[in-house]
């Protein structure tokens, strides 16, 4: 029972902070609301019994990436109130297209049969032991090949960060 109340609390918190992130006029408030949204989603992961994912989510998103955001906002001194520079037509277009996606998603989830997901094996998958087994047995190749992706990103960061001109 308590998990249900927790679920509603976390959902409302996540939605509220996501919306506040979008409509805050000060960038620093947006960043802080985004952090709050990340924590709320991390709470959802714990409710789903995915502890590892929750911890990684909080360390990476709420920790590392938000620190980066905050530093950028502070270093560039962006903490001023700003009016959105977008035109009215662009705003309406964005609302219409975003709303259409939302309607489609609501239509999907309305007919979705929730009883399908009650699989006792799946509730244990988020535990770190099971996750490690899956990662090193079934998904070994993607796990290894992602090293190419990271190498590319690192070489690229050095390439773009160096002072030398081309």
């Amino acid at each position, binding site marked *: 029972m308590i998990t249900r109340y927790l679920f509603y609390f976390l959902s409302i918190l996540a939605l509220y902070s996501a919306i506040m992130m979008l409509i805050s006029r000060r960038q620093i408030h947006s960043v802080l609301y985004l952090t709050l949204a990340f924590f709320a989603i991390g709470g959802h992961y714990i409710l789903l019994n995915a502890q590892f994912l929750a911890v990684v989510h909080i360390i990476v998103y709420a920790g590392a990436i938000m620190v980066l955001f905050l530093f950028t906002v502070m270093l560039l001194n962006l903490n001023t109130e700003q009016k959105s520079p977008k035109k009215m037509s662009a705003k309406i277009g964005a609302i219409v297209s975003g709303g259409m996606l939302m309607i489609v998603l609501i239509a999907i989830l309305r007919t979705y049969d929730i009883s399908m997901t009650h699989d006792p094996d799946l509730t244990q998958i988020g535990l770190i032991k099971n996750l490690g087994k899956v990662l090193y047995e079934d998904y070994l190749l993607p796990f290894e090949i992602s090293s190419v992706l990271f190498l*590319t990103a690192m070489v690229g960061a050095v390439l773009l960060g160096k002072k030398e001109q081309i």
Partner: protein
Amino acid sequence: MNTIIALTVLGVAILFLGILKKNSWLLPTILAGIPIVLILTITGWDTNRHYFNDMLIVDNYAVTFNSVMIFSTFLIFMFAGKYYHLVQRSLDDIYAIVIFALVGCVLMTSYGNLIMLFLGIETLSIALYILAGSHKESITSNEATLKYFLLGSFLSGFLLFGIALIYGASGTFNLDGINSYVINHASHLPPIFKAGLFLMIIGLAFKIAIVPFHFWAPDVYEGTPTLVSAFMVTVVKTASIIALFRLFSTSFSAVKELWEPTLAILAVLTILVGNFTGLYQTNLKRMLAYSSISHSGYMMLAVIAFSHSSANTLLFYAFAYSVATILAFGVLILVREAKGNDLFTSFRGLAKRNPVEAFSLSVAMLSLTGIPPLAGFFAKYYLFFTVMDKGYLWLMIIAIVGSAVSAVYYFKPVISMYLEEGQEFDLKAGVAYRMSLLFLAILTVLTGVLPFFLINLI
């Protein structure tokens, strides 16, 4: 698998050569290494091996398309020495990232699991974001990388969401597993699956630059360093189309009536918008960007008219299109260096002092239009034949109309070079560069005269 390992080793070797300051060794190593990779790839022919729980499938589709992409990359590297000859610093990082991008492309053609598809697309995209911005002092290059990065990462989210919804419905990432799920549930597919399918179409259509997800493409292709643009419009485009083709032919062929109208409309829009907007361009690079958009529309037709021959048609088309486009970019690099821009007016009088270059560009343009007996003609002929064979008359008529319109803009640089008077100038290409241009031009003609080597391959 051999291809991926060999390419990664080559990329790391290039990085090590850069650390050792052997800058003059870089290009020779690549130009020697890529043929070895190509041979290793071809040894996978007819083996049909599945690696690591079907994560990677090396069948004949994968072998042939990988060979085309590796060969195209080789052709692009032939122009790299000239393109970067004024650069003082070591280029090991740029070359290595191109090769890592090629690893991403190889993953996208030989995946057997949606995770691998996403990993391939991300490896490719991150490499391209960096390459697009590798001319740090150029404002257009910065614009290109920022646009591509913001839109690309946003649209990757759509693709990932689509994959997640399909996983939610079918419970598997495996292509064959999804296929058996679709066959078992064909009459009552849950909406969540359908939504996932369409979100995946959106994500992939962005990567291929299909109308209406193409708005980034002309700006990005124009702003990106020319050599990288050549890579983007040929190798990357081929990889993305093949990824789409493998996904739909393996997993979703049982529910063709579900996605066929969407893809058909997207293809028609792409052909028409790409060709008609191409008419208004005043410079060659932007024109080639629109040309690449319209050609991806033609290649989509092969996905829609799916039959046993459409993979072969797609192979021939991708090969003919890649060779002709790289040839055009080869001349474009020279003209941009000599004149500082690539407006059609800059091509005036080019034929008088530079017959080889003018001839090469003309061959490329005629092949892209689809004039017999060049490779582009047979590519379009087989493609339209496949489309017709499956009973899509209206698609074929629109494709032919688009093709006729495209002739107008493909002829613009040819007319400028041969018929219009202009200041005479020498492109100073050098013998080796001219030989590579001629090689590509002859390859285009030969593929057109003798198409039978390629057409019954798979």
